[in-house]
């Protein structure tokens, strides 16, 4: 959490911003689900980062003699798949892919959305009209439909999945930032900056942008699991990451032909997806409540 995201840097003195930070942290830590979510994410991210060193087996090495080893077999905690590949190792390497996709997608979407939202809100006029029209048009497409259509044309690959999902999910951030900017535009310190002869760009990036970031950070926290679910769905349909890459959606898609013989082939990746989504959602709820002094907790 960067300091600049917590409160107006130009309005608050040092000690005030420190006390706000500790209040936010306190509120966050009092939220039990948020703490659980954070722990889940730390474990998942740790497993993902360290996968090349700590995963028990290579995720791609086949061993047909040892196919369909049930969970709990010696050396294969979660069993092996139809090619005898170790499922735990595949899940750990899959976590790398899913988390990476989630981060990249949200970075793309939030960057495009923030810049366009800032321009729309601050400049107004025809720029605002144009950008908001684009937002409306993108919103008119069911998210997954547009993603699938674009990937159908450009071909399925992890690279295409990332930029396509990023490209179709920016409007949310644009709307958020624009609304914030509209609220901020007439606030004194922004007017003061403008009156002192600062250029529009400088006012926007130095004074307005930092104060719009809180909702963006919260939205991004919820955006990551959404991107992970979407990329898993694409992988499942064969429109995303391609086998034999151990992406979780791909693993479910490959496992579905053997569900009667080895249902755990789809159970484990499903559980992994749920854990990561739950983790991010809990953290997102915690962040939102902690950062917004007005929300009362209802959990």
């Amino acid at each position, binding site marked *: 959490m960067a300091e600049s995201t917590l409160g107006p840097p130009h309005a608050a003195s040092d000690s005030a911003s420190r006390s706000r930070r500790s209040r936010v942290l306190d509120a966050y830590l009092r939220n039990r689900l948020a703490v659980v979510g954070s722990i889940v994410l730390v474990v998942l991210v740790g497993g993902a980062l360290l996968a090349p060193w700590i995963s028990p087996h290579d995720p791609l090495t086949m061993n047909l003699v040892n196919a369909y080893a049930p969970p709990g077999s010696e050396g294969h905690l979660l069993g092996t798949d139809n090619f005898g590949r170790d499922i735990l190792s595949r899940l750990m390497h899959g976590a790398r892919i899913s988390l990476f996709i989630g981060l990249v997608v949200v970075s793309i979407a939030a960057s495009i959305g923030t810049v366009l939202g800032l321009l729309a809100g601050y400049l107004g006029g025809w720029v605002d009209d144009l950008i908001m*029209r*684009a937002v*409306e*048009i993108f*919103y*008119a*497409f*069911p*998210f*997954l*439909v*547009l993603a*699938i*259509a*674009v990937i*159908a*044309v*450009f071909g399925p690959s992890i690279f295409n999945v990332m930029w396509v999902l990023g490209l179709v999910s920016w409007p949310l951030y644009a709307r958020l930032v624009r609304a914030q900017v509209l609220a901020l535009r007439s606030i004194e310190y922004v007017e003061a900056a403008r009156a002192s002869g600062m250029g529009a760009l400088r006012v926007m990036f130095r004074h307005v942008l930092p104060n719009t970031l809180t909702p963006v950070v919260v939205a991004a926290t919820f955006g990551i*699991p959404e991107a992970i*679910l979407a990329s*898993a*769905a694409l992988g*499942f*349909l*064969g*429109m995303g990451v391609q086998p034999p890459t151990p992406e979780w*959606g791909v693993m*479910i898609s490959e496992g*579905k032909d053997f*569900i*009667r013989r080895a*249902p755990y082939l*789809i159970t484990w*990746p*499903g559980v992994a*997806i*749920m854990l990561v*989504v*739950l983790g991010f*959602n809990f953290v997102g709820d915690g962040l939102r409540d902690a950062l917004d002094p007005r929300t009362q907790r*209802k*959990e």
Partner: protein
Amino acid sequence: MLLYVARRLVSMVPVLLGISFITFALVTFAPGDAIRIMLGSETANVENVERMRRELGLDLPWYQQYVRYMTGVVQGNLGTSIVSRQPVAAQIAQRFPNTLVLTVSSMVVALGIAVPLGVLAAAKHHRVADYGAMTFAMIGVAMPNFWLGLVLLIVFGLELRWLPIRGIGSLDDGLWAYARHLILPAATLGTSLAALLTRLTRNTMLDVLGQDYVRTARAKGLRSGRVLYHHALRNALLPIVTTAGLQFGALLGGAIIVETIFSLPGLGLLSINAIRARDLPVMQGAVLVFAVCFMLVTLLTDLVYAAINPRIRYG
């Protein structure tokens, strides 16, 4: 109100143009050559490519192509399938009702679960029922629908053999025969929306229940069931209806997945098969219909919102 409707309809025009342009651009500005994508590497010799380019009018400059495309779309002509050689519009018209039935039944499933469960959770705030409902809400949102679909398929289709797992029934065989085929797909598609709406219903109800007029109603001795449903829920419905409408797009997107899992011959399965067969005109038409359908539902939601919200007067 009438003026508001008119204004909303007019504001749809640029969006419609934008949607149609994007679906048009998808195929026209595709990297490489759309025709090579469609023909595949085996049959893409110079002669075939040129013949098809002329057939599809792809040798014209792009703005002429767009005018041609739009002229066709306005007249209900979405082009011709490359695989079946049938008009795209006819194929879509044949499949679309199935997708509509699927998404609407999923919406019914979602609201049918979410509203009672959310009200119950709010009424039993911080009790077992509340925690149960919230657990469902959290897990339901996190569960990928393609995974849930497979699990339901294994349990109720393959193991228990209670329900069919593929295709669609015919209404000629009676309502039950038809509905049976829809149960698993609609449950799969409706669950995550149900989870989302359960949480929303609960939180909205908690807000409403804390307000003075509800306390008054309680204080004057009305039964709590009547207060819940008559006084509180009616006022909580507005955000629920709005969110449900806006989430219709997620149902349409999810329909692609669910129709694929349960081999349900709707628009989603049509697009996936079209993509696999590199039949771009069919995909293009399906995407356009998906988007227009979602836009109409959004419009409907706005109108319902304006109509039932007494605080808003447009015009």
